[in-house]
């Protein structure tokens, strides 16, 4: 890594930490709220700009498109999360999602920086990846994952604003357990079978419990306009993520057909992307059907977040590899 690139990546990391704490603080100091939110957004914009530059510099250093291993893809994910949030903040004038977006970006930075040095180094590509299709196939996928993440995060806030505090906490615990499984799977040698059970069990029971808890309404927390706003935002994120995911899956098929004469081979990661795609297709039809309450839809978007997590990081870290795995780092 060149020094320039290192400096830029570090700046992006530090500013996103800053923006996270400033956003969090803005919820505490009512009088200074507006100012703090301005500072937080400013820091996030800075993080976004320096990360953009860092990615470009990495591409120049490597003399190739800088999206070839997990570390690079995490940089892209953080970038897309920040960019997506800034777009939403611009269109909706929202402020609550900010700290969640910077937290997500931050976690991705941390995860990326914990990866072994070999991931940070710029290495030549394996022959299978030397193709212009990589440009076309991968970025839309990463950006769609980021949008689905934001959609799920907006779902959390929707639950809070509609007074479903208990359900929200249960959903948060669910996602944290899933993340734990992934972190353990990446950095420790815990048997992946247990981690699969942790991920799947937490997701399943957590989701069921969260649905059950929807009946518990904390009236004092209800903010109807807010709930409606975040419902709308969640839908918007998913409506943007869906075409990107579709495009990514289809171009993957075209690449495969070009390279070895078949566009679909039920490779595990491929199948998992299809699962995610089908789930969001179901979500779209739930919307179209108009019988599902916004709170239920918020939970569905959180289930989507879990599936996205599984597709993006889970298959690699929980030992389900297949053709697309980035490899093990232990």
């Amino acid at each position, binding site marked *: 890594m060149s020094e320039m690139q290192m400096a830029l990546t570090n700046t992006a990391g530090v500013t996103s930490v800053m923006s996270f704490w400033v956003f969090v603080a803005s919820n505490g100091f009512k009088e200074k709220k507006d100012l703090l939110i301005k500072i937080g957004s400013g820091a996030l914009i800075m993080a976004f700009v320096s990360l953009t530059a860092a990615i470009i510099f990495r591409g120049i250093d490597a003399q190739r498109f800088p999206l070839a291993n997990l570390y690079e893809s995490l940089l892209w994910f953080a970038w897309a999360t920040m960019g997506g949030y800034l777009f939403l903040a611009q269109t*909706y004038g929202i402020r609550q999602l900010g700290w969640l977006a910077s937290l997500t970006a931050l976690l991705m930075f941390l995860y990326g920086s914990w990866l072994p040095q070999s991931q940070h180094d710029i290495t030549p590509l394996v022959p299978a990846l030397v193709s212009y299709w990589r440009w076309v196939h991968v970025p839309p996928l990463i950006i769609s994952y980021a949008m689905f993440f934001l959609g799920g995060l907006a779902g959390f806030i929707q639950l809070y604003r509609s007074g479903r505090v208990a359900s929200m906490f249960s959903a948060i615990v669910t996602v944290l357990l899933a993340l734990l499984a992934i972190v353990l799977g990446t950095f420790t040698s815990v048997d992946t079978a247990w981690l699969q059970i942790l991920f799947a069990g937490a997701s399943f029971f957590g989701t069921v419990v969260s649905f059950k808890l929807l009946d518990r309404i904390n009236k004092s927390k209800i903010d109807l306009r807010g709930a409606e706003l975040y419902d709308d935002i969640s839908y918007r994120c998913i409506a943007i993520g869906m075409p990107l995911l579709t495009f990514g899956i289809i171009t993957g098929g075209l690449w495969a057909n070009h390279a070895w004469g078949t566009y679909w081979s039920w490779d595990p990661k491929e199948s998992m992307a299809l699962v995610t795609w089908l789930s969001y297709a179901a979500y779209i039809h739930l919307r179209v059907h108009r019988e599902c309450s916004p709170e239920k839809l918020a939970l569905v978007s959180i289930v989507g977040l879990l599936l996205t997590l599984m597709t993006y990081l889970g298959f690699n870290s929980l030992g389900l590899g297949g053709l697309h795995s980035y490899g093990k780092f232990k």
Partner: protein
Amino acid sequence: MHITDEPKTDQKPWQSLKNGLASVKLTIFLMSLTALTVLLGAWCPQESQTGKDKVVETFGAESAKILTQLGITDIYHSPFFLSLIAMLTVNMIACSFLRVFPRVKLLSKPLPFLTGKDIVKLPFNTSIPITRNDSSLLAVVAVKLSKGGYNVKTSDQKILAEYGKYGRLAATVTHIGLLSLLVGVTITSWTGFNGFQPVLLDNHLDFQESEHSKLWVGKLPSWSVRVDATKREDYPTGEPKQWFSTLSVVDKTGKVVRTQEISVNNPLTYEGVDIYQSSWGLDNVVLNFNGSEKRLDLRPMGKLYAAFLPLDQDTMMLFSIRADGTPIKVFAKRPDWEAPRLLTQLTQNKPARLGPVTIELKKLVPITGLQYKCDPGLPVTYFAFAFIIVGVLMAAIPHRHFWLSLDRNADGNTLYMGGRSVKDKVGFERLVKRMASDLEAEFGPATEKAPSSELSVKVHPKQELATAAKGDSAKDFQGDN
């Protein structure tokens, strides 16, 4: 985009069957079930890809047996999965023709202008009193809307505007794509074939052992492909760099109709069949022992190939070769020797003498691995891909309707504005509210200072949803997308 399942009274049985098949609830259920099934398939190694051994290795013999019995180890060919896909197909065809495609007609149906009485029934509406009634009011609104990308129509004291009209075609375009995908995949499955055949130099690839689906009505080619030459190119390190085969297409009568050299990523295409170079090896070596020919099979051993020739109980002759064109090393091996002993090296046309025996290398026979496929549905599939991508892109476009009416009442004029937006409702409402407060400042009662919008504008979200759902005069433009 408002779907209510039709009333269930007074229906003929087939009518209710039709509605059942076209129900969106069923769609959501089937999609979720399909997603779960594919999830299982992604989790469990599939026999058809990784082989049975991998399943046993992953789960142990006992569990593997249970998984196999449940059909999970070959889930994409299981009757369960296939019938799920079949049901989704029926559901999608029914929905598309009964619900989705008919909606295209709505696009060309002109929307009515509305008066204040109807506007207040819209999901989102607001009204402001107007005192300075000058003719520029409507023009101001029209310009604002046009700038925002709306298609604006004005009449007298009314405005009707629409945004993202073609977003309403999203469902139609996506579903045409999905149906075409099914058609494309079906054409391929019924008429296409594929396979892999290792072919020796000078032999023919004849497609007889190709794989195809059970319901197959296709035809195998009457021509065959002859391997005229095949070679391997190495890096200086000895790693293979590229494989080449020169192929001739030979028709029924034995006439060569096409000759082409293929390599990895550079297939031969003839009459819709693609032939790919997919692997390469040396198959056998022909040697001459004191005038009599003997063919020995070569086995890959790491980077080398080796052939074995037992001489008696204990003695074995070993022939090893790295690549075509390099000399063959001849070893002898006995149990009491520590390592095989090199006896001699053979190159073409240079016989070697080993005691009473003369050995001569006649030829090395390479074998080329040819992968072939015929995918007649591919053009349809690509067409489908394009439609699906465009369709889901269109679904991201928010679709909005906006109405405005300036009504004269006894106590002055009131400006009614309202509308609906299926996605990005909040963005739409912010636009209308901002416009209302601007208009009130400019044309409203002459107060000291422009009032803050939130306070003076009456906003009635929600309340009207109930009215709208009951189906009154506003119904036509309520339930759509």
